[in-house]
């Protein structure tokens, strides 16, 4: 009890310090942008053609970091598969899913896939992008294989999609290196802002990331289910 009380007091004190520091030094939305942030906001649309400036920062200005992020996710999925591969799978009787569950998930699944593809195709126009889209698609698959009697996505197909998307991402980066002397450069025409076919390689990269993250997350959930 006394330990919990001390922990509560310490966290309250830390919260007070954080609050007073942030409140005094960083009032919300009142500081003018400086340095590289100002450059992004002023020239982002002109240079990269994406209406959503966050997208152009994530995939082009800081594109190499995103490649690293995707690699980290890949390593995490591989490590999880490695750990769970040694575990014994105990056979147990599972109750069958009800008819309501099966019917609803069967009809909701295509809509979830459609919504996920909408998010990654429109990544340069609306909020979102590859990562949330992949997670949405993986959640759709998760919903299917907990609520259907017999639905198992092919593990071979999942890892094939993942590897293919990863390779394609590096190839797109090397294309920039070959044509514009900079890794992950925007080599395609920019087009008119606010159209679907605009912003050069941003939609291409986001489609690749969407497929990659979706297959990885589905693989993680499938490993967890089967282990």
């Amino acid at each position, binding site marked *: 009890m006394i330990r919990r009380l001390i922990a509560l007091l310490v966290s309250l004190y830390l919260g007070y310090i954080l609050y007073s520091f942030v409140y005094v030094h960083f009032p919300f939305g009142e500081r003018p942008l400086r340095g590289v942030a100002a450059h992004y906001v002023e020239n982002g649309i002109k240079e990269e053609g994406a209406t959503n400036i966050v997208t152009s920062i994530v995939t082009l200005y800081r594109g190499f970091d995103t490649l690293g992020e995707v690699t980290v996710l890949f390593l995490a999925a591989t490590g999880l598969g490695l750990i769970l591969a040694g575990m014994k799978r105990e056979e147990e009787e599972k109750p069958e899913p009800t008819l309501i569950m099966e019917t609803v998930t069967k009809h909701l699944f295509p809509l979830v896939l459609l919504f996920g593809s909408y998010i990654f195709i429109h990544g340069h126009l609306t909020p979102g992008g590859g990562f949330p889209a992949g997670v949405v698609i*993986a959640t759709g698959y998760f919903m299917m294989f907990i609520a259907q009697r017999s639905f198992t996505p092919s593990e071979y197909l999942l890892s094939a999609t993942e590897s293919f998307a990863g390779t394609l991402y590096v190839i797109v980066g090397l294309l920039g290196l070959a044509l514009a002397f900079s890794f992950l450069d925007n080599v395609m025409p920019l087009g008119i802002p606010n159209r679907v076919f605009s912003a050069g390689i941003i939609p291409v990269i986001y489609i690749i990331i969407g497929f990659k993250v979706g297959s990885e997350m589905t693989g993680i959930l499938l490993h967890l289910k089967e282990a």
Partner: protein
Amino acid sequence: MNSLILFMALGLSVVLIVGTIIIYLSKDLLVAILGSAVISLIASIFFLILQAPDVAITEAAIGAGLTTGILLYAMKKTGRYEDD
């Protein structure tokens, strides 16, 4: 910021703190998972209030189903009740 949004944010931060206290005090890990789902909901609203829709949509997508699923699988393999 408008006073209405401020009022809403104040109420929602109370929910955030109460959710944390529920997670902290409960011995049933299923309740802790539910509390973390609630916290992710409120965090997503806060990100939208601070006008960061990209972060909000990522938080929503991850918190809505995936975290709950992974934590449930982990809990199924380890055990539901925390023993003192």
